[in-house]
């Protein structure tokens, strides 16, 4: 249903993702600043605080990278680079309004596969430096993957079921009347949780948790750190953005053009995730695992069942 975007969109995509990541991180920095130093006194002050991610990026660029003894540099580097790469590749099937860089017939599977790259990425980044804490961080992501991935897959399968297609464009088209979020609320909530988990961020920052001094990222400095952590913000943007075609009707909406609706909806989801992070501590995966298997898996299965019955009776 959706048209293919022009070739230059391929070039724009990584840039747009990076800009969105910086803006999101800036919003997060303003909220963190309020917690650390009280609310910003003036707009200028708030603006300065919002600049923090850019300053941080610059700082990391100036820092020299470092090496650890007997590091597996090839795999470690691969892990770091894979994070933003996975984000950009996943972004390729993300429709801007009704156009995406590519709209293959298995777009949803592609998206999920790219997310799974993040598993490898964090594991490799944790493995690379030959350090106990980063290794702990790395394998924590595997535990996290086990906890979130199954409910997550059921959630996106439910959306695909509703549209009777794995093509992202068809999903958006199917929500011309009613957004999926209305009759798939459980799947939507589970998807949002796993969006956080995929970006190993906020309550799901367990692989990078402070109790392991920063986990998988503990030995990263300079550009390495920038690529890894910057990539994480991009992953967050992409996964949040994908909830729009999945559940929130994509570019559909009155008055405004499709791309504007996509942008607005994505921004709203991101704001929700960023603000919501403040409500929750990091979840320890051995505890979350219980919730995932005892509650979320049955819940998403039930949701899928309801949707399947509706679709069969259509």
């Amino acid at each position, binding site marked *: 249903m959706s048209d293919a975007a022009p070739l230059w969109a391929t070039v724009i995509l990584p840039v747009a993702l990076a800009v969105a990541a910086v803006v999101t991180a800036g919003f997060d920095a303003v909220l963190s*600043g309020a917690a650390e130093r009280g609310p910003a006194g003036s707009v200028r002050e708030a603006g300065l605080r919002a600049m923090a991610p850019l*300053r941080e990026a610059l700082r990391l660029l100036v820092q020299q990278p470092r090496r*650890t003894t007997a590091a597996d540099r090839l795999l470690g580097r691969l892990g770091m680079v894979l994070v933003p790469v996975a984000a950009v590749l996943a972004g390729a099937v993300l429709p801007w309004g009704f156009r995406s860089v590519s709209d293959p017939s298995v777009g949803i599977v592609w998206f999920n596969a790219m997310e799974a790259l993040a598993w490898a990425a964090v594991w490799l980044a944790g493995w690379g430096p030959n350090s106990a804490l980063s*290794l702990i961080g790395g394998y924590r992501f595997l535990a996290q993957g086990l906890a979130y991935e199954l409910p997550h897959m059921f959630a996106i399968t439910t959306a695909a079921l509703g549209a009777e297609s794995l093509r992202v464009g068809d999903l958006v088209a199917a929500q011309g009347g009613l957004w999926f979020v209305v009759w798939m609320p459980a799947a939507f909530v589970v998807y949002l949780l796993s969006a956080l988990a995929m970006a190993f961020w906020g309550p799901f920052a367990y692989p990078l948790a402070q109790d392991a001094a*920063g986990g998988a990222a503990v030995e990263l400095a300079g550009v390495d750190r920038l690529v890894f952590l910057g990539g994480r913000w991009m992953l967050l943007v992409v996964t949040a953005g994908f909830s729009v075609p999945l559940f929130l009707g994509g570019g559909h909406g009155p008055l405004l053009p499709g791309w504007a609706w996509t942008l607005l909806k994505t921004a709203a989801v991101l704001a929700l995730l960023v603000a919501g992070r403040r409500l929750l501590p990091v979840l320890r995966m051995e505890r979350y695992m219980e919730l995932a298997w005892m509650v979320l898996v049955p819940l998403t299965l039930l949701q899928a069942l309801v949707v399947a019955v509706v679709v069969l009776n259509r």
Partner: protein
Amino acid sequence: MDLRNLLRRTAMQRPAVLAVALPGATDIRLAVEAEVRRRGWPVAGAPAAADLMVVCGVPEPREAEWLDDIERSMPDPAVRIVVEETGHAVHALEMARRDLTERAVTPREAEVDDQQGAAAGEPGGRAQGEHQGHGDDQGHGAHHGSSPPPAPDDQGHPHRSMGHGHGGPAAHPGHEGHENHHPDDHAAHLDHTEHEGHFAHIDHMGHDMHAMGDVAGLPMAERADDRDELRLDQLHVPIGPGLTDWPTGLVLRLTLQGDVVQDVEVDHLPVPRGHRLPFWDEPWLRAAQGEEVTSGSAARRRCAAHLDSVARLLAVVGWDDVAARCRRLRDELLSGAPREGIGGDLRGVLRRVRRSRTLRWSIAGLGELSSARAGEAGVTGPALTADGDAYDRLRIWLDEVERGLEVLDAEQPLTPDDLTGPRGRLDGAQPPSQALLDILPELLTGAEFACARIIVASLDPDLDELALAPVSGAAHV
């Protein structure tokens, strides 16, 4: 100035800070934390992420080695400063910032001279730029196993006056190469004898595996029976004073299998004795010595101490937002903010922590310590009252903060008999934190790594107190 240099300077305007506190320097740590926050500088959780290492307190000569090691695992440009008194924090950080911006634009060859110039210009040598001692093409640990590059000329460096020759890479090849040039270390570890300075590798623990085989110059893991009598790899991992949100000066030598703690040895950095009272216990000890102390100021100190503990626990648990709020309120309390000004905010934070079911779900059941067992072990204070797990101890802290808030501005003097500090009775046979340290091994054994850190944070022993024994106030009772 060309654009490149401008960017480099701008980048170092707000360096990431790794604060390493030494025992007896709680007030300095608080001053540094407050100043760093006021400046809006990022706080690094690990040496790799930091530009600036701030040592709070006066390091003893034998502590120099692990400090050097932490510094070596920082990426260039890296600066280390020592803040020896609370009043010097502002100036020291400012000097360090200047030093870093200079360092960022100075070509490496000229760095040593420039460094000396900068250091010489500093009054009293409070803010000392420390030379990294390796070219950037080498990277950390890169010269391990090969002949080290010529050491840069460190002559005249103020750091020398502190009594440990900082010999550059010639003395300490690559930051992770140190296992190799201390063959005795292995023996020392295996029979658990004390060995100064081997917690040097604290922040890159993976390299502290001690066994027969060597891979790439690093010893391999040992094997030992686990709880189920399976023969599994065993790692000896010291964790300690370089960690953030960790009791100042505490060193734990963990034996890990997977990430389960099999054995714990509790150790700590030397605690300077005598020259000042432990910061958190000060009001009660002063009252015991016959000084006039208002009960309001004691309540203030207790609230601040508990907020500090709560902030650390929440930071370890990963709830940064509330941890940051607790730290801000702690500093406001210490700077004498009136009750009306701070009460609303503080109650809001307390309510938020109490209401969080996720937090409860996350840490309930960790480090179960019954009142009976605590009493036997000589534990007093919140850990005894709590009669339960990490979450119960947190709740006691919150309750005490709330209660303290009521009497924050009370003017009546503290009675000399009141000797219950934030961590327990100061007139017992041993300082309250000693009992907390003694109970650690039994609480930690069998816990997972993450849980172990949460348990330690939920007890939050204050090593400054160790200098107390025997309590001076006991005579008054």
